[in-house]
């Protein structure tokens, strides 16, 4: 993935949590506003009742309004918070009784009952004002009654409601966030489980994915499976092709070689014999090169995706020694394996076997007859040493020898492709090790494969 990589799970989590937060805040605001309205309406109703009872207590005598303020008009405004109550009675624009400045004229009877919130006496008050025209003598008189109450009790109620609303909102948010985390995790889980199952597979495991997945994932799985099938088919095809090609080439080569050998036994003329001999050598050369090129390709391919398992190096070497003993015997060479107890490492058995076989092949090729080729498995550090009693590596070429197609200057006519040490070195490097070449003082050479 390139650029800003996004996490589906994180995105889902944050979307859900953000939504929950928004809902919690909205809930809080709605509850608070609604509660404020209800509380305000309650206060207004009481103020209206108080106002009405004051209004009712007013009588007009000789064009002059008289108000006998009833106690009950204020008693109904008693609150737990000891809110203060103010009142004012005006005839026309003139104050008859009550607090000056609570309400200012001119008053208009057509306005009806009017509520206002304003500052008075150093506090915020809710003011109810009503103007009425009372019939008296020649012209009616205007009576205006104003009642105001501080808002301490209201604020207390509102605070209590706000705190509760905030608590509910917070609890809702915490719950919703928890559910968001759980939901996003369980939604993404099949995806990550599938990814894990695919990642856990060995490099050669191209079976289709069969685990049940959510329907949303099935297009992905279907295309993944079709890719795997195609890849597997193409791998099998190239493997079959290589096997088939090898078969087609090697079988006629074997025919030619066997014919040449049989003919060589029967012909006497020197030039014919020389021709047959070089024919056999050319066949050996080409088949060996083909084999090692394939081996080298395999080492490169497998080295990229190393299949590590627990393997016993001594077991691998013993198998190789058994297998190569008949070849060694043909030169009257002895193959000796030095090891005590299994030496276990994590590695690719096929690669390591291939590398060691190349080292032993080399040792067998360059050893003088009736000598000994020594294979030693060391434990600390883990290494496989292959030593022969041959002429050794040319000192000035030591570093170049493990390069591809590079052969020692003293290889002479010995059949070889120059890939053996390259393969061994590649295998060592794929396992995080190295190949070391050294000449022995008493003659002979050692190749050490550190793993």
């Amino acid at each position, binding site marked *: 993935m390139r650029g800003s990589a996004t996490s589906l799970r994180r995105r889902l989590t944050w979307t859900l949590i953000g939504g929950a937060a928004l809902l919690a805040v909205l809930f809080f605001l709605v509850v608070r506003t609604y509660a404020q309205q209800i509380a305000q309406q309650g206060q207004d109703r009481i103020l209206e009742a108080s106002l009405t009872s004051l209004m009712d207590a007013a009588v007009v005598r000789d064009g002059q309004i008289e108000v006998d303020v009833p106690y009950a008009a204020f008693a109904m405004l008693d609150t737990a918070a000891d809110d203060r109550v103010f009142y004012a009675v005006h005839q026309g624009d003139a104050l008859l009784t009550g607090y000056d400045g609570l309400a200012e004229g001119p008053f208009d009877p057509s306005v009806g009952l009017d509520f206002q919130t304003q500052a008075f006496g150093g506090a915020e008050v809710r003011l109810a004002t009503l103007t009425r025209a009372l019939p008296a003598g020649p012209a009616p008189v205007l009576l205006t009654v104003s009642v105001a109450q501080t808002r301490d009790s209201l604020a207390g109620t509102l605070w209590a409601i706000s705190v509760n609303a905030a608590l509910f909102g917070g609890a809702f948010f915490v719950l919703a966030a928890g559910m968001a985390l759980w939901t996003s995790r369980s939604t993404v889980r099949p995806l990550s489980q599938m990814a894990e199952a695919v990642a856990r597979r060995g490099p050669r495991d191209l079976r289709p994915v069969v685990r049940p997945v959510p329907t949303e994932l099935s297009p992905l799985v279907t295309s993944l499976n079709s890719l795997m099938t195609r890849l597997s088919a193409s791998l099998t095809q190239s*493997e079959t092709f290589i*096997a088939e090609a*090898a*078969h*087609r*080439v*090697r*079988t*006629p*080569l*074997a*025919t*030619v*070689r*066997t*014919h040449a*050998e*049989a003919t*060589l*036994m*029967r012909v*006497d003329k*020197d030039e014919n*014999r020389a021709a047959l*001999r070089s024919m*056999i*050598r050319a*066949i*050996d050369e080409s*088949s060996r090169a083909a*084999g090692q090129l*394939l*081996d080298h390709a*395999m080492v490169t391919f497998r080295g990229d995706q190393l299949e590590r398992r627990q393997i016993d190096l001594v077991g691998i070497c013993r198998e190789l020694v058994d*297998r190569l*003993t*008949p*070849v060694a*015997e*043909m*030169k*009257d060479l002895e193959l000796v394996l030095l090891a005590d107890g299994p030496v276990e490492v994590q590695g690719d058995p*096929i690669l390591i*076997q*291939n590398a060691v076989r190349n080292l032993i092949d080399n040792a067998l090729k360059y050893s003088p*007859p*009736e000598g000994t080729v020594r294979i030693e498995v060391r434990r600390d550090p883990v290494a496989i040493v292959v030593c022969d009693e041959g002429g050794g590596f040319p000192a000035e070429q030591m570093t170049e020898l493990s390069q591809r197609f590079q052969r020692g200057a003293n290889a*002479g*006519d*010995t059949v070889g492709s120059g890939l053996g040490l390259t393969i061994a070195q590649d295998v060592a490097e794929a396992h995080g090790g190295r190949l070391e070449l050294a000449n022995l003082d008493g003659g002979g050479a050692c190749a050490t494969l550190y793993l």
Partner: protein
Amino acid sequence: MKYLLIEDNAELAGALCTRMRLDGHVIDHAATLSDGSDFLRVGEYDLILLDIMLPDGDGRAFLERHRAQEDDTPVIVLTARSEVSDRVSMLDLGADDYLTKPFDHAELQARCRAVLRRRTGSAQTVIRRGDAALDPVASVLTIGGHDVTLRNRELRLLELFMNAPGQIFSKDKLVDRLFSYDGTVTENAIEVYVGRLRKHLEPSSLTISTHRGLGYRLDEG
């Protein structure tokens, strides 16, 4: 020794049969797996040489059947493939050894002998000349009840002489047989091995005579 070769390539089979007979072996050739089974039903063989890709089936299936029938004739697989995994599975299925084509005939012989040595310890057909007997599988020369173990090249050289007594072998030919066409070997190397054989044969009635300009010959009496 008696071999059964199961190989569909007529050219290779022909060449291999010729080569085997030149060494004095008996070899039957079957071109298909079913022919091979027929041969096995009527005849006894010391060793089976089995190709792995055959027209009427996979050699591996044959191996499985062969082992299931508790036939313990050893099998050496001749394969044109070089995948290591293929080789391992063949050994798992009961092949005694395998050889990748094209192969050195001397190596095939060496492997056959090694397999037989593992299986039976000695050859059914011991080569007798005069008062000497050679067991090529155990690599033992017996003269007058006395055993001498031969090195591999000594064995191959003596086998050659004992299979064709009275025939003169040139140094050149002997070099080819013993050193697998390795260009670095000189003809003088042969003299070393002939010298050793003469020493081993001292107590017997056999002698190796030198024919100047021609080569060596095994004489009886």
